[in-house]
């Protein structure tokens, strides 16, 4: 297994910059998710690591060795694509064993390793079945088996769950993570689905327009988004971004929005008057009839354990998460407070987070 080191990686297609000076390290045994909307450069980054695309500038080191210009087949990696291609005329056993057969591994060893791999993926009971009759999940497991059996230094996965329906995706997310916990292979996983990234990854690199906007653990990225883009992209519903104008002084512990004082974590920067944003996660709203912050109920969405309450406040629509046994009437006015310690502040002019007592050292890249 191996460490992947990305140094000043850059890729242009003509005038279009797909990846802009990326730097990050995937430690040995770590699971990294490259997360972002389509066109953000995540797949291009992955393809450069795989050797399917050559960088315009920068270096890729695999276990300390510079592989930037090595051919794909000379890098010890396995690539799992969204559409899993299996050999339709072979059974499960032969599909999984094929990469070893191609390398000329003796039959007895192939047999042992196929069985070991199948046990790992819990598909040992279907080894002698044809792949044509298999359900989607089992097909994906066979495709994974074919990638794992070579024991490569690392795995690269490009939206491997993209085509599955929601219910089944949850099952596969869990299986992939549990497989990772068993084999601890260095993994780079590309997805546009923030829930997949949050659920599986040790680290997430959030990409936007070719730039890695934040690199950190799922909790760091969720609790302390470094930019407005990250704040908006992570979370479902996403962070509420309440716009206002104001000046900040170091040591301030409130902001004023539309004449209402709102307590925030202590601000550790001086900023002249300008456009600012208060970031509130839906679960950090509290309902309190006595609060001076008033909001009008626009609608509610029942989710079983919780409900999402859409509210109009400060001239905008926000979404709060509340226990599902609270009753709200559309059109009614309610009082709202926030969980102060969990609030984020942004400078809308730069798009970056404003440092406060609760933001750890900002993870700008």
């Amino acid at each position, binding site marked *: 297994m191996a460490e992947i080191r990305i140094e000043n990686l850059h890729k242009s297609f003509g005038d279009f910059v797909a990846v802009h000076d990326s730097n990050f390290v995937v430690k040995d045994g770590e699971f990294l998710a490259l997360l972002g909307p389509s066109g953000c450069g995540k797949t291009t980054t992955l393809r450069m690591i795989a050797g399917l695309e050559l960088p315009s500038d920068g270096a890729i080191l695999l276990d300390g060795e510079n592989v930037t210009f090595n051919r794909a087949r000379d890098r010890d990696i396995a690539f799992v694509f969204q559409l899993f291609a299996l050999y339709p005329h072979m059974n499960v056993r032969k599909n999984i064993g094929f990469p070893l057969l191609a390398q000329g591994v003796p039959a007895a060893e192939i047999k042992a390793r196929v069985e070991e791999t199948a046990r790992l993926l819990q598909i040992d009971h279907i080894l002698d079945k044809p792949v044509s009759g298999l359900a989607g999940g089992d097909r994906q497991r066979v495709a994974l088996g074919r990638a794992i059996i070579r024991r490569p230094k690392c795995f690269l996965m490009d939206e491997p769950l993209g085509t599955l*329906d*929601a*219910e089944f995706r*949850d099952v596969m997310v*869990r299986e992939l*993570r*549990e497989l990772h*916990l068993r084999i601890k292979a260095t993994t780079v996983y590309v997805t546009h*689905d923030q*829930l997949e990234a*949050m*659920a*599986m990854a040790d680290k997430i690199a959030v990409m936007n327009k070719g730039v890695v906007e934040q690199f950190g*653990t*799922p*909790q760091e990225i*969720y*609790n302390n988004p470094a930019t407005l883009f990250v704040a908006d992209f*992570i*979370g*479902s*519903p*996403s962070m509420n971004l309440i716009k206002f104008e104001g000046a900040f002084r170091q040591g301030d512990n409130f902001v004023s929005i539309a004449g209402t004082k709102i307590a925030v974590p202590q601000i550790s920067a001086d900023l002249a008057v300008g456009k600012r944003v208060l970031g509130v*996660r*839906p*679960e950090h709203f509290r309902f309190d009839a006595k609060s001076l912050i008033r909001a009008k109920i*626009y*609608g509610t*969405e*029942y*989710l*079983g*354990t919780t409900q*999402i309450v*859409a509210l109009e406040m400060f001239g905008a629509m926000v979404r709060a*998460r509340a226990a599902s046994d609270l009753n709200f009437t559309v059109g009614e006015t309610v009082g709202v407070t926030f969980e102060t310690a969990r609030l984020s502040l942004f400078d809308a002019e730069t798009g970056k987070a404003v440092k406060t007592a609760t933001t750890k050292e900002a993870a700008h890249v």
Partner: protein
Amino acid sequence: MSNISLQNVSKSFGAKKAVSGISLDIADGEFVVLLGPTGAGKTTTLRLIAGLEKLDAGDILIDGSRVNDEAPSGRDVAFVFQAYSLYPHLSVYENLAFPLRAPARKMAESDIDARVQDVAKMVRIDHKLQNKSTKLSGGEMQRVAIGRALVRDPAIFLMDEPLSSLDAKLRGDLRLELKRIQSEIGATLLYVTHDQIEAMTMADRIGILSDGVLAQIGTPREIYEKPANLYVAQRLGQPHINILTPDMIPAQSLPAGTKHIGARTEHIAIETVAPSKANGSIDWIEHLGDQNHLHLRAGDKKLVALADPFSPFKAGDAVHLTLKSPLCFDQSGNRIG
């Protein structure tokens, strides 16, 4: 607006029974969502009501009159599909006006204009009326498609996964909008989806379909809290409901005959204890930001439960699990408590 009544409706395609004996009444102004996996019979049911498929057996009544043999155009229903299917060469305005320009309507230009402006405001696309329909984002195109169904003021709206090609955030916005529009105009709406969130958040009542059969119909809360059987219980809830056997985890007084237990996250109490007192352990923790999913192990069974993201649980912890009034099912999967 109108009501719909399905009475013992069946439809087969060759040997495959797509819909078998569905009876369902949808009241005037009601929003009903049919939820089920691919192949459950959702779309066929819609197409039968629209008149795009012919019934094998049963009756369909719209506003009390039997429409079995009525052509689609005679049923006064509007259909919104997953694909937006707008006229690419026309502006947003002309797309919205199109259904009103049908010769049979003989509608005056000023009436058409008033109606288009009204509907455009309702679906919040009035600022883009002069845009080409191809110059819109996915969410805007779907607003126009919904608007085009609205202008006709039909008796019934039928919608087949209209939001499933949109990204997650837009879907969230449009869910809320669609619900608002529906209640504003008091539309009778039948909506099919395989997305439990759409069903839970929009429906007055949800119908759960399984292999062409209506397994249960009720309010989202009824379906979630009082599922008729194991199949229905597994259609709603995130994380997915845990299905257990009665002896696995201690619980107070289960009804006699309980063979399966359905434990949603709110039915499981978790306590960290010394390993000697534990009946389970935490395998790993999924950090989803607003909440953590605890992946637990009890004996050889895996479970998932929710925990506050700032709770002290960590992977490897020994825990004691107890069930708090879980759902109980008998041998054949019917709920008995």
